[in-house]
């Protein structure tokens, strides 16, 4: 009986032990599964040849392209929903793709190789490296990144890559040029500057003091029509570099203004309570100093009243613009002045007026 009880107790302890081991195993399995899910190899089942990630030595360009063949080494399709790059200078096409099981697809990576740190600006050759991280559908956010790298050669470094004339260019008046300094990182014979016909006269001069420094002078042509403009100047280093290699580009933009303008061209009145009115002065003037008279005013029926001031000197004509604050929020109205010159020619001068209507009593918000 005792033996039987001992056996029974042993059997109970054994059952308890088995239960304990079972639960412990389940727990351990759960923990190890969670661990394996969170730390498993993030190679994602995609293979890429290391040589494809090395683009070698190239001249810098804003739109350098390299192709990356991606091999799906799994038995399931892989969907890439997005590519994240460590530099804004990178874009990828296609931006999303599905690679079927055991198949290969090619992506095209476009890199702006002119993007560089300030300390790299005068280097003839520099190391370039950027990370590309594919986001796979259903995977964790942080995944393995591929490092695209190579050596980038620079022959010419402009001080500015974008120049803007603002509103300085007035049609019919001489256009003041803009100059940009160009620094050669290697001995060059010269620099050739070109742009689309009809946009600008481009001149290159070499510094007397420093043979490595050139100056580009951009003078817009009168053939550019009124309004905003933008064009690209292509800079080709000559000597020591292959033809059509190491070219740099500068974007030139601005606006060609009419000589007949309202000053200011945009009246900004700020916030005022409903029911009040605000006055501001505007001057109409020909920057070519052509005598003119205003023969008509269209106030757009937006609560704006216009009254002329006594004739000013130099052929200016001044007006008081009275804006009645009629509505809440930001509102813009357009006043059009019809001007006539001595030779009978006419023109329309626009004036924008903007105000912000607020409640008359705003104590509740205070």
């Amino acid at each position: 009986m005792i033996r039987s009880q001992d056996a029974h107790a042993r059997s109970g302890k054994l059952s308890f032990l088995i239960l304990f081991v079972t639960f412990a195993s389940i727990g351990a399995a759960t923990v190890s599964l969670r661990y394996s899910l969170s730390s498993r190899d993030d190679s994602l089942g995609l293979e890429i040849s290391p040589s494809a990630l090395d683009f070698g030595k190239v001249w810098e360009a804003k739109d350098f392209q390299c192709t990356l063949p991606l091999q799906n080494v799994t038995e399931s399709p892989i969907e890439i929903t997005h590519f994240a790059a460590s530099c804004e200078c990178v874009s990828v096409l296609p931006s999303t793709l599905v690679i079927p099981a055991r198949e290969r697809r090619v992506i095209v990576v476009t890199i702006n190789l002119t993007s560089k740190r300030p300390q790299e600006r005068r280097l003839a050759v520099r190391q370039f490296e950027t990370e590309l991280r594919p986001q796979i559908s259903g995977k964790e956010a942080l995944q393995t990144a591929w490092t695209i790298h190579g050596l980038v050669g620079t022959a010419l470094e402009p001080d500015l890559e974008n120049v803007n004339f603002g509103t300085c260019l007035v049609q019919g008046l001489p256009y003041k040029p803009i100059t940009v300094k160009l620094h050669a990182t290697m001995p060059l014979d010269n620099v050739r500057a070109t742009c689309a016909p009809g946009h600008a006269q481009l001149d290159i001069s070499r510094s007397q003091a420093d043979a490595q420094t050139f100056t580009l002078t951009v003078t817009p042509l009168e053939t550019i029509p009124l309004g905003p403009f933008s064009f690209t100047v292509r800079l080709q280093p000559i000597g020591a570099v292959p033809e059509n290699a190491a070219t740099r580009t500068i974007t030139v933009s601005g606006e060609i203004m009419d000589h007949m303008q309202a000053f200011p061209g945009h009246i900004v009145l700020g916030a005022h309570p409903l029911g009040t009115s605000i006055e501001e002065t505007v001057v109409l003037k020909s920057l070519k100093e052509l005598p003119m008279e205003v023969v008509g005013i269209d106030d757009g029926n937006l609560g704006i009243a216009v009254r002329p001031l006594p004739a000013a000197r130099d052929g200016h004509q001044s007006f008081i613009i009275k804006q009645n604050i009629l509505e809440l929020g930001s509102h813009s109205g357009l006043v059009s002045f019809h001007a006539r010159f001595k030779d009978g020619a006419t023109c329309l001068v626009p004036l924008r007026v903007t105000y912000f209507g607020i409640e008359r009593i705003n104590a509740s918000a205070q």
Partner: protein
Amino acid sequence: MVSHSRSLYTSSAYLLVACTGILLCHDRSLAEPQNGIGAALKAWRTQESLVQSATFSWTESQTHSRGEVSNSHGAAGRLPPGAIIPPADVTYSVPKTLAFDHDKLRYTYEGKHWSPHTNGLVSDPYVSVFDGAISKIFQPPGAMPHPTGYVRPEKRNVDSQNLHTRPLLMRYRPFHPVMGISKLTEFTLSAQPAMRGEGTYVALEHNDVATGTGRMIWADPEKGFAIVHYATSRRGQAAVTTDIEYARNPSHEWVPSSWTIVQIDHAGMITQSFSAKVSTYDINPVIPVTAFQVVFPPGTRVSDMKDNVEYIVKDNDTKRLIPPEDIGATYDQLLNSAPGAARHTTTHGSRTLWWVIGSISAFLAISASWIWWRRHGA
């Protein structure tokens, strides 16, 4: 209330400048091209040299358009998706002060801040100081439930180029390398006429070809070339306009009395408008250096960007350092733990969870023991 404290020397100098200004302005041709710019620069230099210190208090009526915060650049990552902040146009008053003495600067306001949590305006007080050596920001409890402080790495007050301090600093520090108008000597006389009512101004302009930013100044020769209009534009589109009015004080100085600052978006619509009215001022007062310093009170969470250290100020002038392993812990966790242990500190929420788990485990253990005892114990 307006108060003045000035030495006889300063008053005499002002009188000299005023007389010179009257003589210069008598000949209106000085407002004409070529002469206008030189006279304006000279008047500004004189004005700057005469005013070593000043204090100003004003009230600013601030109007923010619907969505102005959420539409601003960089807001996307900080706000919940689809949030419109503020959800409606809001206008409220903000008392502000500015004090400066040579390079030292103090700027304060009792501002407001739209809280997405309360869906309303909450108090947002602010103080920034620079005592000539150290730059600090202090934010008493308001938008944040606890006081916050920053020791900045810059050798200047962070608000030296603030939109709201500009009307005063343009008047008294136009050439200052930090507080002044950038590249002021590179401005050229504009061909654009500048008029307001019967007044004719000298118009100066500066265009930055690299950024496409244009700046325009109107200076009033009748008021010692005080700047009455300052406008910036981006690629030809108006961006910010500042219009300043002046009042002549008993010493015949033209002192800024009110101003309006308007911000415009790329579509030409107004996003913010600030109308300020000066309540008190004092020119050339003696300001103690302590006015340009801030001592963070106990409880302030400080980011010292100068020495790269974070801490909470404790009583008795001690600091509770915040090492990198504590980053992510709440303010309360930091306050109630030793450095490095904040994230291990049990919070009320996690204590409850452990109680639940413990109770269930105990119940299961007792149940299992009871079953085992029933089967085998007897």
